[in-house]
């Protein structure tokens, strides 16, 4: 790729690329992110290529491995352009049919279409209910772009924001971001414009910008998806940020467990460098900036800004106490601006569309859109980008398609492990930074784990507290010892050893850990336990006082019995029981030997007559 020397040259190149894309209208996109690859998207691409070659269409129709457009549950998704016919859960064996029917004959393969609840097939991607209620700014090009090809990004209007920003003064760029009301998407919700401004105004020649891609929340993968599917949007945002702040060096701190994100990012950076969009004298403006990729060692706490910077400097990744904001003294004690992947990816959108347009989306204090990873007991698992202020109910039922198997919704856990659980009565809560904090949860980086009635909230609290205890760096006492104690007490409750005073003790410990910890990990470590205690206290009490797990999860507190009325003696459970603990005459109601039962629940799963009771 030729080096682009001026802004005008970039414009010419883009125009040429757009024309080129215009001429090749028929093409196939196959989502090829980690989530799709796990379901064999690689093989689908190969099969499609092979089929096209066989049919002699290889020159006319391009098969593009793209980012995941969010409906991860249905991957690999294959979309045939220009009609945008979306096929779900495509296997390599379907390649011949897709090419033969759709491409050649112009017919639709019904069986691969999405079928909504009423059995209607949906042809076009945009009509899928999953997408219909979303407003996709950051994810707008996911599923359209080949992340390893910068020309794709350029042709879709990429780096126009950079061109524009470079014609503005730094102050104007910061002003634009400030006016947009963009808040940090990593969880803190700090106003990005203000952060940039204080970093710009901080003393010192050398300044840094950092992209925080150390996404460690269980069940959250927005940042991974953005880096895998559209790395250039992040790079563009960082260049604009660096220009505004006056930084000459940027770092992306990304989890080593995201190999594809690292690969795509490194390719994208090299392409940007080759094009002259990174490096010395960017687009002839005299502005110099480059980005390096740094892979994290897998510590959750390194998502905390001071720990991340310590890790970048080569020290132990532990948070530090700081008087001064990192904007004034951060990496190597130089002014440093750290933003999350999603925040950076929002920057080009704002510059392109204008601050006022961006500020018109969302609520009074939370502007724009937010990506959530909607996982757990939900029909449509995937990444969801909605305007701030969208009610939880809409996200869960309209976009997420509700709870599978007709079960009852119980709670939604937002904000990752440090977040909290929101119960059903608060489902109409508009999701924004402040409202979630009010109910004892938080926005976090945007994880949403849906739980149904079969989820034990004490068990959930135990799981997340355990996660945080494992991830506690051990530097400060309350987090190091407090999380271990909370985990111990929660395990005791789950295993039937709960003591009546444990609830009060847990609450006390939780507040101590919250109030006295050094960093945000400790400061929020009690959230899962405190928020479940707040909304589901009765479950704790049932565990402790009645020795009963209402959701039937905690094995020490449940008993499996057979409903004599319903059991018809089919014997399936007896065959499956690993302990040979089910016995009974054929065609007669069976019974379970409680001494042998290890409460694995297999009998309940295999019983087709719902004859196995849990109590």
């Amino acid at each position, binding site marked *: 790729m030729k080096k682009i020397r001026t802004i005008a040259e970039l414009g010419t190149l883009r125009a040429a690329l757009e024309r080129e894309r215009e001429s090749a209208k028929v093409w196939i996109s196959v989502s090829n992110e980690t989530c799709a690859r796990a379901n064999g998207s690689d093989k689908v691409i190969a099969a499609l290529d092979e089929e096209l070659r066989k049919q002699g269409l290889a020159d006319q129709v391009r098969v593009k491995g793209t980012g995941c457009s969010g409906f991860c549950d249905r991957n690999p998704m294959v979309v045939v352009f220009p009609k945008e016919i979306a096929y779900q859960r495509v296997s390599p064996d379907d390649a011949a049919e897709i090419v033969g029917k759709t491409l050649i004959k112009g017919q639709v393969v019904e069986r691969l279409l999405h079928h909504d609840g009423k059995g209607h097939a949906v042809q076009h991607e945009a009509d899928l209910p999953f997408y219909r209620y979303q407003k996709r700014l950051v994810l707008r090009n996911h599923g359209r772009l080949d992340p390893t090809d910068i020309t794709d990004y350029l042709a879709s209007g990429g780096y126009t924001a950079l061109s524009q920003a470079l014609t503005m003064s730094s102050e104007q760029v910061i002003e634009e971001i400030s006016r947009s009301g963009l808040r940090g998407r990593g969880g803190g919700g700090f106003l990005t414009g203000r952060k940039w401004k204080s970093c710009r105004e901080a003393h010192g020649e050398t300044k840094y910008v950092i992209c925080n891609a150390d996404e460690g929340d269980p069940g959250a993968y927005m940042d991974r998806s953005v880096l895998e599917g559209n790395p250039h949007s992040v790079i563009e945002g960082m260049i604009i940020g660096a220009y505004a702040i006056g930084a000459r060096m940027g770092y992306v701190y990304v989890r080593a467990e995201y190999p594809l994100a690292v690969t795509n990012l490194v390719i994208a950076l090299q392409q940007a460098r080759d094009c002259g969009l990174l490096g010395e004298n960017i687009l002839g403006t005299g502005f110099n900036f480059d980005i390096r990729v740094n892979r994290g060692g897998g510590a959750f706490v390194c998502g905390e800004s001071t720990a991340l910077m310590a890790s970048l400097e080569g020290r132990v990744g532990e948070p530090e106490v700081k008087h001064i904001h990192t904007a004034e003294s951060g990496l190597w004690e130089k002014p440093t601006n750290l933003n999350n992947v999603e925040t950076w990816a929002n920057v080009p959108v704002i510059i392109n569309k204008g601050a006022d347009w961006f500020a018109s989306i969302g609520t009074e204090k939370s502007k724009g859109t937010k990506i959530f990873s909607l996982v757990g007991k939900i029909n449509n698992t995937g990444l969801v980008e909605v305007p701030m202020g969208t009610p939880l109910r809409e996200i869960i039922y309209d976009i997420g398609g509700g709870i599978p198997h007709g079960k009852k919704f119980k709670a939604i856990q937002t904000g990752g492990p440090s977040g909290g659980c929101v119960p059903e009565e608060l489902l109409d809560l508009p999701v924004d930074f402040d409202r979630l904090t009010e109910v004892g949860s938080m926005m976090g980086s945007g994880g949403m784990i849906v739980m149904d009635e079969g989820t034990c909230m004490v068990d959930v609290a135990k799981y997340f507290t355990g996660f945080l205890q494992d991830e506690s760096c051990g530097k*400060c*006492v309350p987090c190091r010892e407090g999380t271990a*104690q909370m985990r111990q007490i929660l395990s005791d409750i789950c295993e039937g050893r709960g003591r009546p005073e444990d609830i009060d*003790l847990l609450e006390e*410990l939780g507040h101590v850990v919250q109030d006295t910890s050094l960093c945000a990990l400790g400061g929020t470590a009690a959230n899962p336990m405190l928020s479940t205690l707040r909304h589901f206290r009765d479950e704790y009490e049932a565990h402790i006082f009645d020795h009963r797990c209402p959701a039937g999860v905690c094995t020490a507190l449940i008993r499996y019995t057979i409903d004599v009325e319903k059991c018809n003696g089919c014997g399936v459970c007896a065959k499956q029981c690993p302990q040979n603990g089910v016995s009974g005459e054929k065609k007669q109601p069976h019974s379970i030997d409680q001494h042998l039962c290890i409460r694995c629940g297999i009998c309940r799963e295999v019983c087709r007559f719902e004859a196995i009771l849990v109590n």
Partner: protein
Amino acid sequence: MPTLTIDGQQVTVPEKTNVIEAAKTLGIEIPHYCYHPGLSVAGNCRMCMVEIEKAPKLAIGCFTPCTEGMVVFTNTEKVKQARKDVLEFLLSNHPLDCPVCDQAGECWLQIYYMQHGQYESRMMENKIKKSKKATSIGPHVNLDQERCVLCGRCVRFCDEITKTHELGIFGRGNREELDVFPGKQLDNRYSGNVVDICPVGALTDRDFRFQVRVWYLGVQDSVCPGCSRGCNIQIHYNRNRPHHGHGRRVARLKPRYNSHVNQFWMCDEGRYGYKFVDAGDRIISPMLRRGAELQMATWGETLAASAERIRAVNPSQIGVIAWPQLTNEELYLVRRLFVDGLGCKNVSFSVPSKKDGGGDDFLITADKNPNTRGAGEIGLPIADSTGDILQAASRGEFKLLHIFGHDLLSSGLDQPLVESALAATETVIFQGSNSHLTVDRADIVLPSATFAEKSGSFTNFEGRVQRIHEAVPPLGDALPDWQILNRMARALEMGWDYQGTEHIFKELAENVAAFSGLSYCVLGDQGELLGYKPTNEAHIPTEPVTTVII
């Protein structure tokens, strides 16, 4: 200079002072583990929580700088509860080792728990087993990982003060443990300090291990005699339980804070260099040579014999080799007795040592004597160097040599010269504390006290005059050098008699210009520089006196 209110009392402190230090000036102690005034702030123990008006949460005192008009409370219910809870956390994973732990009695976990603790256990204390218990990690330091509260002071000490980086904290969460880096030993020249700053019994002193329980120890302020830096120390002595510590009366030395000299630290050489005080080679009785043998004698006999021999010779036939291990007061008496009194002209004090002292750019100096500067200021040597005196002696010019302390036969001096000088001199009087080769060649031996057994003052290389105090009485019949000189002067009918070291120092200050204006009162416990100009105001110590340093 912000003015703030702490627990209702107003105080004005220098910029950037933290709340712990500000409270200290008011005599309010804010409990803490990881904070140490000599190290950077880590803020991880969460013990120094204070309540600050208008602040949403409790703040840590170590990391909160004082600002104008700040209102701090250190003793509210909320603060007390936070301390109690943090202590409970610390204890929930701390072994019940107190009976065998050397730190017991001076352990800040014990002390704060007694003050602020939650006395009943509410938790399941599943203590984490760690790999290193009672393991030596260097020549002087023992590590017990289970007792460690992971405050990181020792790590910061090795990173910031010695810059040798031997220690690190490994692992994470409650599996975190302190250890030396693989292949490393904690063997820097200041390693003993990590024991002092360890608030618990995780790092203990191998030399002191199991010697004496700390509550049997008495404490006396002194100055390290190991080199010319004159680090301020405390002598910890055991006088009541002689069966402990194999009879060692001086159990250990600890650094004492002095901002002008050593801050909070001392070197290992000085720290473990006190063993000569209770060593088996101590001379515990005056001795006279009768025939070929040195035999025990009384002070009366020995002093009379010395006086007789001194009187018998011409002062120009007397050579005196004084000792820079002597205090200013004693060196002054050497001058009064031999120079001013007898008119002796051949007085020296410095003897080169065999090996290089190995000074560094922190505390250790190459000169291993605490009072070389003082000896020079007091006016010794008069004319010649020790080498010249020995040359003259070997030529048979001296009838009497009075040697203080030095082992000339193991020194850096030309050995044949020493041999011939000792052989050619009729009477050799040796005055010192420990026996060595030179003592065997003496005709009269006067046993003197060590630095731990006498009072007085040393002048360090910068000219800071600092007090030492008697911690234990002189061993056997030994006497402080000033008393020996005083008695000798009496035997020689010099016409002077001193009541104590303060008496001598007063006269020293009057007669030696460099010391003018100084007195024991002016010296205080932090010392004062030579050339001191008294102001009209009453003498106020420049720094608050820190006796307990953690």
